[in-house]
């Protein structure tokens, strides 16, 4: 209540300070993401989700028109990201920045938003440390710690005793290995072996042999969605690991945009993650139905959800604080709302989304594969922020 009053007061002051003309202002939001090249799927998912949000909620907040401006940076490219942010802030006069698929792209704009006092809403980039670089960062996606720790806790509670971790050998993979390993050992389990697989691996058969030989009952895997996950899950199902009784637990490997291409081999894979497009709630059904209506070929995934909730947060911040960056950040802290993914809130310290982490299993649903939720760990914050 106190916060609401403060918010209302802030809005009132902002309205008075800016005068009558401000009522008809156009507030611009710059979205920095990848719209071309091999990673163009990120920008596409972001943009479509924003358009769905606008279609559902209109483009006006308190009489101000909200305009989204999209800038392509072509992939993980901090220099391009910084240049795009500069152009958006100076030339276009944006009052909010958003997007950021890759961690380096988010980190690159930290000095700029500090100087300009402009909030930046991170739709994806999942490294915990980003939010420490600027108090203007707010994140609506997830962090690896946030999903890997619940995965470990759930596995320990459901009969896993000895786990082998198999991760792609790059920063997020090592984060996942550490997060899962420490949480699993805390629960009394044993990590029998830690396998790091080079990013360029095409043939995963040798690793499958090592997983088998390790004597583990479960493998925790972390790989980038796409070709690596395709080849890994194929190797998992074709080298008889399932038959040998070795369970699989992962995180975002079964992403909705690639899950159908994994085919039959994906059925039964268990993952712990924060969003599935098969989540059963009216809000999610409304979201996916609108997406299907506007973009019939698209499917919602975690990137869509990050952008959808990000757009919601921006609308909220504008409603409460207009274009005053500092006030907008204060207004965002502690906000909670019902999202299509479930109940979420913004943690005031880490400025990161607190959310349920769902345990899902891949199932066939008509002509497509879905991540069917069957268990959950409630209200998980960013467990990696204090590391």
């Amino acid at each position, binding site marked *: 209540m106190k916060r609401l009053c403060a918010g209302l007061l802030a809005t009132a002051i902002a309205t008075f300070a800016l005068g009558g003309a401000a009522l008809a202002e156009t507030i611009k939001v710059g979205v920095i993401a990848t719209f071309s090249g*091999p990673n*163009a*799927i990120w920008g596409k998912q972001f943009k479509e989700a924003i358009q769905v949000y606008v279609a559902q909620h209109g483009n006006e907040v308190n009489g101000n028109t909200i305009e989204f401006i999209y800038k392509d940076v072509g992939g993980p490219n901090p220099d391009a990201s910084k240049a795009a942010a500069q152009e958006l802030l100076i030339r276009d006069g944006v009052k909010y920045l958003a997007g950021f698929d890759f961690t380096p792209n988010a980190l690159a704009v930290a000095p700029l938003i500090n100087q300009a006092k402009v909030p930046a809403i991170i739709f994806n980039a999942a490294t915990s440390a980003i939010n420490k670089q600027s108090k203007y960062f707010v994140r609506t996606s997830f962090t690896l710690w946030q999903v890997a720790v619940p995965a470990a806790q759930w596995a320990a509670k459901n009969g896993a005793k000895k786990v082998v971790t198999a991760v792609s*050998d790059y920063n997020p993979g090592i984060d996942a290995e550490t997060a899962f390993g420490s949480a699993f050992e805390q629960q009394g389990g044993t990590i029998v072996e830690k*396998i*790091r*697989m*080079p990013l*360029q*691996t*095409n*043939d995963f*058969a*040798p*690793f499958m*042999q*090592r997983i088998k030989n390790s004597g583990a009952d479960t493998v925790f895997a972390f790989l980038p969605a*796409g*070709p690596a996950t*395709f*080849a890994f899950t*194929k190797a998992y*199902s*074709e*080298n*008889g690991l399932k*038959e040998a009784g070795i369970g699989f637990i992962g995180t975002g490997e079964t992403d909705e*945009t*690639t899950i*159908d*291409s*994994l*085919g*039959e*081999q994906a059925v039964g894979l268990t993952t712990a993650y924060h969003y599935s497009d098969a989540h059963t709630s009216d809000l999610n059904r409304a979201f996916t139905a609108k997406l299907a209506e506007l973009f019939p*070929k698209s499917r919602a995934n975690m990137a869509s959800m990050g952008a959808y909730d990000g757009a919601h947060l921006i609308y909220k911040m504008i409603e409460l604080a207009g274009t005053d960056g500092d006030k907008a950040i204060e207004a965002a802290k502690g906000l909670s709302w019902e999202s299509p993914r479930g109940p979420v809130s913004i943690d005031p310290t880490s400025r990161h989304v607190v959310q349920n982490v769902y345990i899902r299993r891949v199932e066939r649903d008509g002509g497509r594969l879905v991540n069917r939720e069957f268990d959950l760990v409630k209200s998980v914050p960013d467990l990696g922020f204090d590391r």
Partner: protein
Amino acid sequence: MTVALSIVVDGIAYGMILFMISVGLSVTMGLMRIVNLAHGGFAMLGGACAHVLTMRYGVPFVPALAASVIAVIVIAIPLERLVYRHIYRFSELEQVLATIGIVFVMIATVNLFLGSTLLPIRMPPEVSIPINLGFKVLPLHRLIVIVVGLLMVTGLYLLVERTRFGIFLRAAVDNQNTAASLGIDTPKVYLAAFALGAGLAAVGGILGAELLPIEAYYPLRYMVLFLIVVTVGGMGSIVGSFIAALGLGILDTAGRYLLPDVGTIFFFLAIIALLALRPNGLLVRPS
């Protein structure tokens, strides 16, 4: 002992896929001497075609494979007549630039129509049945790939070494003018060889897709792999490519079994050492 056997079996299976995806390049780059960076592009077009046929229209795998290979050859023939014919005369660097340009056009085309996600090819479910060899389990499609690879290397060896077409092709590549003055229709020979290379690329792309899945950026993602196999094998030698692919497959697999943390470095160091010792590749045809 089990580990050694596993390395050999997994290595041969992986090496055979490496051979499949690069055999087309050992025809165009190895025999015809064009730096054909668009090789992976033909493999991708074949794979994309097989994806559309098997997933959208439910065509069974074998007819889809045949139709896709024919489709790629049909695309390759006018491309050779209109574009590649001029590229043959370019210097090596110009060939690199021209063919990489063709790759970008191919990537953009596939991206436009099919998007940038994985393009899976539906195979009969029987091929992913795990076969128990006693000391290890191997999916059936690896065995199929091994058999097809052996047939391909034998067939190509006979074609290049034992047929009139093989003699014409080798003559045309070694000295175009002399070959032409002896009555060999060199443009036709080149066209046939190029179409063969593109067709083989499509076969390799489709059969190798179990391990190297097809997507719009396939030609760039695996380009280094194709080039390594042909270079290590020695330009112009099909058998060389075959031995190189198997050797590299076993080497890479051994690295992943025995030294997993330095796996990739081990692989590239071994290639550097090999090329330092034999800069022209394992088997080089004396000219």
